[in-house]
């Protein structure tokens, strides 16, 4: 959880001694400086700032999904790999897509056909109307598309708290911080931002040993 701006405590503390005031002010200064840091930390690691309980998340590396910076074209490139077009290729052209659509079904090519089912939200809930390369937080701040976790976190706090603590989103790599880092998924790696509900799976085959019991219903 991003640390909230600390409540000004100097008003509550008796100001009999100037030392109190100075130490409180310096603590506030340090804490407010930390609060600005969070925008850059998502892509690198979870452990930049300690949570309220004083624990730092173990060293982690969060995957940067290509969907946040480019669009699949459906074609193969000269190296045989799927060809993707960077968002900035089109969205650096002034005047292109000036108005943010109100509904997903009104979006034109190459983004037509967005399957949208994300609660009562509309496009402008997340996308910055001024800049297609940015997302907009609830307080109006604009963040780059690659920092999408911060946007997801402002509504899905419990899931984000669990994600920081390692009980949401899975991981690969090392459980031992001395011998390696955790490789974490980005929210978008598992959840399509426009239709985030987790899909149904076809399960792998069951065991074929002779003791496989039939369950009671």
């Amino acid at each position, binding site marked *: 959880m991003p640390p909230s701006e600390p409540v000004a405590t100097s008003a509550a503390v008796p100001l009999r001694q100037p030392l109190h005031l100075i130490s409180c002010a310096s603590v506030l200064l340090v804490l407010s400086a930390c609060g600005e840091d969070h925008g850059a930390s998502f892509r690198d690691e979870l452990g930049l700032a300690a949570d309220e309980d004083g624990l730092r998340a173990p060293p982690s590396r969060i995957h940067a999904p290509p969907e946040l910076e480019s669009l699949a074209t459906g074609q193969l490139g000269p190296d045989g790999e799927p060809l993707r077009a960077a968002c900035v290729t089109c969205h650096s052209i002034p005047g292109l897509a000036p108005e943010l659509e109100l509904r997903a079904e009104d979006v034109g090519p190459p983004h037509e056909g967005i399957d949208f089912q994300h609660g009562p939200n509309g496009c402008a809930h997340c996308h910055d109307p001024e800049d297609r390369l940015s997302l907009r937080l609830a307080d109006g701040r604009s963040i780059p598309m690659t920092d999408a976790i911060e946007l997801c976190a402002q509504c899905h706090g419990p899931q984000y708290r669990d994600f920081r603590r390692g009980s949401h*989103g899975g991981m690969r790599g090392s*459980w031992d911080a001395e011998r390696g880092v955790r490789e974490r998924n980005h929210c978008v790696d598992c959840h399509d931002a426009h239709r985030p509900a987790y899909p149904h799976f076809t399960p792998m085959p069951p*065991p074929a040993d002779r003791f496989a019991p039939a369950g009671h219903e």
Partner: protein
Amino acid sequence: MTQSTTSRRRVLKAAGATLGAAAFARAVSPVIDFASEISAGEFFQKHYKELSPEEMAVVLRRLEDETQERYGAEVTIRDIRPRENTQFGYALNLSICIGCRRCAEACHVENNHDRATHQSYIRVLELRQGSIDMEHGDATYEHAVPRAGHFYMPVQCQQCDNPPCVHVCPVEATWKEDDGIVVVDYNWCIGCRYCEAACPYHARRFNWHAPEIPAEEINPDQAYLSNRVRPQGVMEKCTFCLHRTREGRMPACLEACPTGARVFGNLLDPSSEIRWVLANKRVFVLKEELGTRPRFFYFFDE
């Protein structure tokens, strides 16, 4: 009556001795077959805990050669000891598990299980919401998951702190190691299956026949106490992938889980994910009333 050198008594003695010898030979023939398939090295091998490092090295080379000979695969078998200040714990989020069985599949591949029976140390039970009674779980479902009104509970060895399987083993072929993992010395196990009967979680597997695995599918990164290819007639179970976890890596089932329902780590590390889950989530263990004190925990998000 003419005098004869053979009497009725001598004939009967000779016939009895011949039949007796034939019966004895028939009776001991299984032992002869058994002895002809076993090498001297394997026959005289000491218990894991009694092997010196040099003797262990000889054993590992012999096992690697046997695997090469029988399966045509070149493997490396190591003896990986527990690390200090490590006690493993594992937790599984029942609010998130969808029952896709990717964990069981990963275990099947990582631990060199028999292909025909699609064996795995993990059984995923589909349970109706409202009860966690394992005996009503269905492990054989084949429909799309998750199914409405049900939840999914993968069950594997719980690495109990008070393990019934260890208590009943008549030859001490299974024991609990210093980092909490309950292991089996496959070369010491006599295959009596008492441990399989004693385990309340159906975590133990018996090798009715030697695993059949194509050479190219064998995982060559093996350890003596975990995923080396087992012989016929011995017990085996989940080892928390000790050939991975004792080197700092995650277990195969955890990395395969697409929903991130599994949490693993060192219970002695206060900043670990497993400690946070145990302190902050609604956690329980299976069959708590039996007093087995598992190291495997289940939790819900709400």
